[in-house]
């Protein structure tokens, strides 16, 4: 599957395209299929997100899992500071990244 991701312009937060808007949670991301480039062009005009780009991901029971570790780290937060991630109380979150 293909996901669209970037950083929120104002906050810098990692965001994922949900089909209608941008979410901080990768579980909300949708497969943009072949529409990625068109969505990128449209979003460039909306000026909500910085440097959006397409990534590969696999569909899992927990939702989309980015194929590359860099994007998994982006999705969750730094592996060395679980308290600063989106799931500080989830003991399995680190394993999802690595």
């Amino acid at each position, binding site marked *: 599957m293909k996901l669209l991701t970037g950083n929120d*312009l104002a*906050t810098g937060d990692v965001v994922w395209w949900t089909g209608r808007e941008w979410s901080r949670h990768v579980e909300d991301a949708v497969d943009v299929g072949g529409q990625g480039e068109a969505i990128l062009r449209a979003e460039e005009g909306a*000026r909500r997100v910085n440097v959006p780009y397409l990534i590969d991901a696999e569909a899992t029971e927990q939702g989309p899992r980015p194929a590359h570790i860099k994007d998994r780290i982006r999705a969750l937060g730094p592996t060395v500071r679980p308290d600063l991630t989106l799931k500080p109380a989830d003991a399995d979150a680190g394993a999802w990244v690595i």
Partner: protein
Amino acid sequence: MYVYDEYDQNIVDARVEEFRDQVERRLSGAMTEDQFKPLRLMNGLYLQLHAYMLRVAVPYGTLDSRQMRMLGHIARKYDRGYGHFTTRQNIQYNWIKLADAPDILAELATVQMHAIQTSGNCIRNISSDQFAGAAADEVADPRPWAELIRQWSTFHPEFTYLPRKFKIAVIAADEDRAAMRLHDIGIQLLERDGVLGAKIFVGGGMGRTPMIAHEVKDFITADHLMSYLEACLRVYNRYGRRDNIYKARIKILLHEIGVDAYRDQVEAEFAAIRDLGIDPPVAELARITAMFDGPDFDKDAPDAVDRSDPDFAVWLDQNVAAHKQPGHAIVTISLKPIGGIPGDASADQIDLMADLAERYGHDELRVTHAQNIVLPHIRKADLYAIWIALRDAGLAEANLDLISDIIACPGLDYCSLANARSIPLAQKIGARFAGRQRELGELKLKISGCINACGHHHAGHIGILGVDKKGTENYQLLLGGSGAEDVSLGKITGPGFDEDGVVDAIERVTDRYVELREADERFLDTYRRVGMQPFKEAIYG
């Protein structure tokens, strides 16, 4: 230390308001990211993995308690309660919002701090010896010269858009505590026949093509140092490549045309500009130099230290260095606790260090390029009280220059350029060797998460480079580098390892070192004596 005059303050204040306007136009969409990016980089604002990252300048690593407290305040108010001290003596915040950036810069400006030129293709923070003004081996305090270079390079009309970033280091002793030979320009102040001057080295750097700077000028008198620097930069600006970002550093220019050809160009340029008034008037130099005269030391400070607390004695022997003033010492506060994150300090820890500097240290701190903090002027009589306070705050790791005193870049946990994580590896190495590090002695280990080498892995006695191997993290091991006056570049041992594998490989390396070492040889000395082969055999069998 240097205190802004009205002119300095006006520059910084005006820059804040200019950037505020630029941010507003970016947020409104009036400016595109392509237009905004070079502007935000010139104000130290990156876009990293998780958020914007702000790099605040700590000029030549020197700051006072008021400034240190402001850094803690920024961490609390605008970030997530901590900051990261860097290999260029700066501090970085990892969780900045674009909308907050102008207010952060405004607050920094109230204590004479800024983020100007901490990124971008310009002259970056001027770095120096963290023991400046305290060490007995310096011919002069290098920091007035670092301050002059800072002022000269700030908004320099010719050098604001160089082919690539430019890093300058200034030292004033034969012992190189600032990795001077691995800078684009390295300056060593020295005296010849009673005259202060400098030896100039050009073309050093790490990154994907590490090089050691060449001696370009044997001795330039101090009164012409600035015009000589101007000549060096002009030649670079004229011929440095702008067509290929990977060949744009001055080290590549010297490599391609040769140091003699470069020197000839510089000398010709210098001859043309030396009398144009680039060098500071004597009165201005005296004004700046006077600000670095040093504190009023307690001349009756006792020299004896009570070593009866064994833990204190270990820290004393490892982290405390001799001071030029009897009865005083230089304290290095390790930001490398075993299992911690190298170079990180919480807002509370930052405040504590500010308090200690104010109460015990003539209100002065230094950031080192090894990502630690120095209190340069401490009475020996106060060492125990300082150690207790550090110990209670988790800042008393007695590991200066030992294997757990690791330089590590933020790596893939934070940096958008990284290929591999560096911090978890540093934590594993620290844990593995915590019990043996004193037995191993001086062993400088440095980790970079990518080829850009922000972790200085080329200059590590043991260096580690993180790479992406078909989508997974892999680590190359290097041996034999040094950023000190015995400068050398590390050599790759062979095939890389996964994270656990490289820790095991390092253990085999250190076991072999212990077998082979003679007398008091450091690891680096043994390696240089016996070569790579015995270590390669130990690693790969």
